[in-house]
C-alpha cells in the first residue's frame, strides 16, 4: 500500500500534471483531425520519453492515447468525419444529433461514455488482468474465426431498413479487403502492379472517403447553402442540447455493456478500438427496446460506440502487462517506451516492477480524468463548429481530409483512394445502401480471412474444428442466436411499417 501511495505522489507532481494537460489538449486536437492518428502522435512522442523518467513518459503517452480516441468523436459528431477509425460508429447517431441541433448533448454523452468506458476498463485491468490474459491465451485460430464471425453479424444490425442492402455492402467490404498481399503467403492479389496496393487499401483513406468526403458531396447538392444544424427556437434548442439525468438513466446499461464488450475486444490482440465501437453499437441496438431509433440521432447510440472504443485503452494493456503481447499499434509503441525506461513487461512485471505497474494504473486513471476536464472546458468551443456555414466549413475539412490521407504513408495514391471511396460512398448514400457495414466488413475482412485459413490449414480442411472446440462452438451458438434476434426484429419492423 505504501508503494502505491508513493506512486500517487510521484504522479501528482506539478511537471507531470502540466505534461498531462498539454498532451490531453494535443490528443483531442489530433484525434479530431481526420488522418492524424493516435498512433502517429504516440509514435512521434516516444523519442521525447528518452529525456523523461517513467512517470512523465506515461503521463504523456496515456494522455495522448486516451484523449486521442475521444477526440475522434468530436469531428464525428460535428461534421460526420470520424477523426479516428474508433469513432466511425459514433457518426451514425452523433451526426444526426448535430443536425437536429443537439450537438452539445451528443458531445457530452460521448465524453461521459468515454470516461465511463475508460474507467471500467482500468478497473478490470487492475482487478482481473492476470486471469483475463490467460483466457485470451486460449484463443487459437478457430476461436478467433468464430469470434470474428460473431463480430461480422453486426453488419446485419447496421443495415438499417433493408438488410439485404446492408449485407451487400458488407460483402463489398470483404471483397475490397482482399486487395493487397495475401495475409498468409504474402502473394500479391489484385494489385495490378501497383506497389501502393501491396499492403491493400488503408483504413484511414477508406474511412475518410466513405464517411467524410461522401457527406461533403451530399452537402454539395444544394451548393452548401445551410449550416449543419437545423434551426430551432431558443427555448427548445437549449432544452434539447443538454445532457440530462434522464439521458444518463436511459444509457447507463448501454454504457456498462459496451464498456465490457470494449474491454473484451481490447484483450484480444490485433482487433482494436474500431471493431469495438461497432461491436458495442451493434449489440446496444440489438438489446435496445427501440432499435429503430438507432441511426436517427439517439444518445444511446453515441454512448454505446464511445464507451466501447475507450474501454479498449485500458484493456489492451492487459495482454501487454501480463504476457508481453501488444494488442494494437499503440500498445506496441508503449511496449517500446517501457523498454526505454528499463521496464520489461510479462508475468514477472508484477514482481520486479510493481512500482511501474502502479504508476501505469494511476497515470491511465489521471489521463481519463484530464480528458474530462479539458474536453468539458472546450465544449462550448466545439459546439460552435456547427454554427459555421457549410460553404466555409466543408472545403476546409476537405483540405484536412486530403492532408490526413496523405500523411498516413506520405502517398498521393492514398488521397486518390480517399476520393474514389468518397464517390462510391456518395452513390451508396443516394441508392440508400448503408456505408457502415462496408467499413466494418473491410476492417474485419483480413483478420477473419487469416483466422479462417489458419484454422483450415491446422485442421487439414476439416470444418469440425469450429464445432468441437468449446469456446469456438460457444461463439457459433451466440452468432446463431444474434442472427435470429436480428431477423426477428427485422420482420417485426417490416410488419409494423406495413
Amino acid at each position, binding site marked *: 500500500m505504501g508503494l502505491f501511495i508513493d506512486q500517487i505522489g510521484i504522479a501528482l507532481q506539478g511537471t507531470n500534471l502540466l505534461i498531462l494537460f498539454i498532451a490531453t489538449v494535443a490528443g483531442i486536437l489530433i484525434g479530431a483531425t481526420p488522418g*492524424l492518428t493516435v498512433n502517429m*502522435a504516440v509514435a*512521434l512522442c516516444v523519442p521525447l520519453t528518452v529525456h523523461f523518467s517513467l512517470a512523465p513518459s506515461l503521463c504523456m503517452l496515456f494522455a495522448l492515447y486516451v484523449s486521442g480516441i475521444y477526440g475522434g468523436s468530436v469531428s464525428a459528431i460535428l461534421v460526420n468525419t470520424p477523426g479516428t477509425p474508433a469513432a466511425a460508429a459514433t457518426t451514425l447517431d452523433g451526426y444526426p444529433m448535430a443536425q437536429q441541433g443537439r450537438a452539445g448533448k451528443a458531445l457530452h454523452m460521448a465524453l461521459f461514455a468515454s470516461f465511463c468506458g475508460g474507467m471500467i476498463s482500468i478497473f478490470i485491468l487492475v482487478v482481473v488482468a492476470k486471469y483475463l490474459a490467460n483466457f485470451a491465451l486460449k484463443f487459437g485460430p478457430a476461436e478467433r474465426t468464430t469470434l470474428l464471425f460473431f463480430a461480422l453479424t453486426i453488419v446485419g444490425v447496421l443495415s438499417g431498413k*433493408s438488410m*439485404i*442492402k446492408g*449485407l*451487400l455492402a458488407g*460483402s*463489398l467490404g*470483404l*471483397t475490397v*479487403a*482482399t486487395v493487397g498481399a*495475401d495475409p*498468409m*503467403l504474402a*502473394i500479391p*492479389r*489484385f494489385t495490378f502492379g501497383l506497389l501502393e496496393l501491396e499492403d491493400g487499401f488503408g483504413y484511414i483513406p477508406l474511412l475518410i472517403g466513405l464517411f467524410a*468526403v461522401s457527406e*461533403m*458531396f*451530399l452537402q*454539395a*447538392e*444544394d*451548393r*452548401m*447553402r445551410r449550416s449543419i444544424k437545423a434551426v430551432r427556437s431558443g427555448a427548445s434548442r437549449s432544452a434539447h442540447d443538454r445532457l440530462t439525468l434522464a439521458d444518463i438513466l436511459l444509457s447507463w446499461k448501454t454504457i456498462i455493456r459496451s464498456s465490457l464488450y470494449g474491454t473484451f475486444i481490447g484483450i484480444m490482440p490485433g482487433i482494436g478500438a474500431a471493431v469495438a465501437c461497432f461491436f458495442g453499437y451493434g449489440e446496444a441496438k440489438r438489446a435496445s427496446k427501440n432499435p429503430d431509433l438507432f441511426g436517427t440521432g439517439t444518445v444511446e447510440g453515441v454512448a454505446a460506440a464511445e464507451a466501447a472504443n475507450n474501454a479498449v485503452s485500458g484493456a489492451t494493456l492487459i495482454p501487454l502487462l501480463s504476457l508481453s503481447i501488444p494488442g494494437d499499434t499503440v500498445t506496441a509503441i508503449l511496449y517500446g517506451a517501457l523498454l526505454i525506461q528499463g521496464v520489461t513487461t510479462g508475468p514477472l512485471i508484477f514482481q520486479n516492477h510493481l512500482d511501474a505497474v502502479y504508476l501505469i494504473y494511476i497515470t491511465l486513471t489521471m489521463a481519463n480524468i484530464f480528458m474530462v476536464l479539458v474536453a468539458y472546458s472546450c465544449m462550448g468551443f466545439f459546439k460552435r463548429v456547427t454554427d459555421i456555414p*457549410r*460553404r*466555409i466549413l466543408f*472545403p*476546409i475539412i*476537405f*483540405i*484536412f481530409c*486530403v*492532408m490526413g490521407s*496523405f*500523411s498516413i504513408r*506520405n502517398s*498521393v495514391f492514398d*488521397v486518390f483512394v480517399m*476520393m474514389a471511396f*468518397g*464517390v462510391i460512398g*456518395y452513390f451508396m448514400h*443516394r*441508392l*440508400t*445502401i448503408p456505408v457502415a457495414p462496408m467499413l466494418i466488413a473491410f476492417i474485419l*475482412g483480413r483478420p477473419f*480471412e487469416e483466422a*479462417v*485459413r489458419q484454422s*483450415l*490449414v491446422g485442421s487439414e*480442411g476439416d470444418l469440425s474444428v469450429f464445432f468441437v472446440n468449446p469456446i469456438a462452438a460457444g461463439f457459433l451458438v451466440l452468432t446463431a442466436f444474434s442472427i435470429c434476434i436480428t431477423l426477428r426484429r427485422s420482420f417485426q419492423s417490416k410488419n409494423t411499417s406495413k
Partner: protein
Amino acid sequence: MPKHPNFKIGLFFLALSVVFALFIVPTVGEDWRKTAGADVEFFTVGPRFFPYLSAAIMAVLSALMMIESALQAKYGAGAPPSTIPWDHLKPVLVFMTIGTVYILSLSSVGTLIATPLCLIACFRYFDLRQWRWILLLAFGITAMVYLCFEKLMMVPLPRGFLDM
C-alpha cells in the same frame, strides 16, 4: 423487366461478383487449395479462397435482392424509383472535379500553392462573395495545414516545383 431500382442495384452487384470471380480472381497466381512439397505433402488454403468466398456471398445476396425487388414490383410494394436531378448532381460533379484537380496538382504544383487555389475555387463556387474573407481563409488555412502537418507532425507534404 421490373422497374424497381433495387433490381438494378442487385443486377449491378451480381455482374460485379461474376466479373470479379471469373476474370479478376484467376489473376492471382496460386489456386485456393494446394498440396505441395517434394516428399512431404501438406494441406494449405491458397490466396484465391477468400476472394472466391466473398464473390459467392455477393452473388447470392445480389440474386436475393433481385428476387425481392421483383416481388415488390409485382405486388406494388417497396420504395419508388429514386433519381438524382441534374441541378443537384451538377454542383457535386463540380466539387468532385475541383477536388480531383487539386489532388492531381499536389505533386506538380505543391501543397502551398495548390491548397489556397483549391479553397478559393470552392469558396467562390459555393457563393462566398467577400474576397477579403476568401483570401484570409484560403491563406490562413494553408498556413495552418503547413504548421500542423509539416512542422508539428513532420509530414513531408508535396512541394511540387518548389522542391527543385
